[in-house]
């Protein structure tokens, strides 16, 4: 008997859960516990939108969702920046060039690069949160003329935990983007800011009526940053966050990544603050 939806499609659907084995072309240590992997994207190419993620599998170890941190124009490689925190992420960080990992994706929603055209852009990044925002920042800088002011605000634990530091210097060297960095603690050799990341919002000028903010970092940081931005007059619909929950299938079939009424793998991970604001205050949601 006919089922709902696509059940009657003549071509049987493929097994989306199976990873595609690809070669690691380069592994580069970013920080003490963080590596960037460059993977051969194969004949299909690495076509993705800023903010999307892949599921990465290490043979015999496991599979985890990892945001894509590369330039969307570079379709020959999947680029992922990974912090070694669990079994699978540690195994990914330990892979050497020439070895193979499994990839499936890309999945999820993206940063609102097109909707934000004509507006000022605020990127608020905490810790590794700069990695999922990097494709968006690179896109904005490439299409610089389409946006108003651009500011990249970065918070890190300490100066040595500053991700993509060289690139931050390059961006700061441009005359058309403001880069502000603050750390939680520092020694005397640090000439930048020490303090909480949202304080940087006061350091930049933006037109609250025409600003899109893209925020990525630990959930507490995103919640507080979004609240601060809204208090300063940015519309909640224009503030975007990238949320994180347990993820097994990434194709809206396993039920693990539920957040509020959403399935984060399908409806997120990037969501407007207006959609999630009321949920962010609910414990254990």
């Amino acid at each position, binding site marked *: 008997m006919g089922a709902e939806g696509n059940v009657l499609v003549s071509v*049987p659907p493929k097994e989306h859960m199976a990873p595609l084995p690809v*070669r690691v072309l380069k592994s580069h240590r970013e920080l003490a516990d963080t590596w960037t992997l460059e993977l051969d994207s194969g004949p299909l190419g690495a076509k993705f939108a800023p903010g999307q993620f892949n599921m990465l599998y290490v043979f015999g170890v496991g599979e985890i969702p990892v945001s894509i941190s590369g330039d969307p124009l570079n379709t020959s490689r999947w680029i992922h920046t990974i912090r070694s925190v669990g079994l699978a992420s540690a195994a990914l960080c330990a892979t050497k060039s020439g070895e193979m990992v499994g990839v499936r994706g890309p999945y999820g929603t993206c940063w609102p690069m097109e909707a934000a055209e004509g507006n000022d852009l605020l990127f608020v990044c905490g810790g590794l949160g700069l990695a999922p925002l990097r494709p968006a920042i690179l896109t904005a800088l490439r299409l610089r003329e389409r946006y108003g002011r651009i500011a990249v605000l970065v918070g890190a634990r300490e100066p040595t935990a500053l991700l993509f530091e060289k690139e931050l210097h390059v961006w700061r060297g441009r005359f058309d983007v403001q880069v502000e960095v603050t750390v939680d603690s520092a020694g005397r050799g640090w000439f930048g800011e020490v303090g909480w990341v949202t304080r940087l919002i006061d350091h930049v000028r933006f037109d609250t009526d025409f600003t899109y903010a893209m925020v990525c970092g630990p959930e507490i940081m995103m919640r507080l940053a979004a609240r601060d931005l809204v208090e300063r007059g940015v519309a909640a619909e224009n503030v975007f966050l990238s949320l994180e929950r347990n993820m097994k299938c990434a194709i809206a079939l396993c039920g693990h990544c539920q957040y509020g*009424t959403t399935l984060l793998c399908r409806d997120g991970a990037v969501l407007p603050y207006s959609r999630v604001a009321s949920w962010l205050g609910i414990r254990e949601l």
Partner: protein
Amino acid sequence: MKNPEASIPATHPSPYFVRFDIEGLKRLIETLKQEGYEVLGPTVRDGAIVIEPIESVSQLPCGVGDEQSGGRYRLTQRSDRSRFGYAVGPTSWKRFLFPPNRLLWRATQHERGFSVETPPVDSQRRAFVGVRGCDLAAIRIQDRVFCGGANPDPDYVSRRKQTFIVAVECGSPVQTCFCTSMGTGPAIGDGFDIRLTEIPDGENPYYLGLAGSEYGAQLLSQIDAIQVNESEFAERNAILASAAAQITRHLDPDHARAVILENPEHSRWDEVASRCLTCGNCTQVCPTCFCSTVDDVTDLTTGVAERSRRWDSCFTMEHSHVHGGAVRRSPRSRYRQWLSHKLGSWWEQFGTAGCSGCGRCIVWCPVGIDLTEEVAYLATKRDAPPEDAP
């Protein structure tokens, strides 16, 4: 099935609406087996009516009824010889479309890396005999989950396409049923290949069979049957009206959806959490719960790694695990997740409620937690009992 789009008139009179006796039912099952179907149907095992492969009509429960209430399930002896004189048991059809365990893929290590193969999808033809309205609705809810999105599950799709549905309208609801509220029963309108209505009639029950597909009509035509007459049709309507009248539990799905999503901090969640054992029984008996997790098994000596999928439950801590620990640590948050998903967020995710009104979660909850009662409490002001509290 063969031609699911075939439109078969569901109203009487119809050339596809026929009457036959137990011999006709026997013939139907035999025909299905000859056509290569594995026939699944209700049978009595370990004091319960469960769904299993059956060889013949003799394995169907005969004269068996049931009593069900919160945390309680008992088989009873009926005064007739009806084969479908009971409500749904602990098993549902879910396991035959979405098996509890399934190998997703196998990776084999070789010198320069590894390769991945996927096993073939299941292509066994299966006939589901005795699908009640609530369970038919549950199958359609899961159709939306597994087939309705951008990435349909290939195994489910294959199994679903190979499934022949013999639905049976329900004349014997129990006190945990609320299909009438959910619009899923006891009568069945569509979504079947053949629909049966059992008329108990003492020692010799008989069946009114309606074709819902061309293939269903073809099979019915092979049975020695006569066309249903007006009085038999009236008898069927009377049985269903009586069944509907016996259903007292109530849940308004639209109301429940709003109430649940608007009250995530209601004190009732604490109250229900004080009773909930977070055993996950409700999720295991639920015909729509679809959460699954994956298991990896790696054999380093052969260099083979397998990933399989297995049923999971949102009542486990692992379900919400992120780096750092579980998000939903308290029983309160896990019960809230289950109920909020089932009756609330399911709508936004899949355009339907995640509940068919079968009542299994009430019956098989060791402490008899009743979701209809919980919704009624959530609709009231904090700490006040609902007006019609049981």
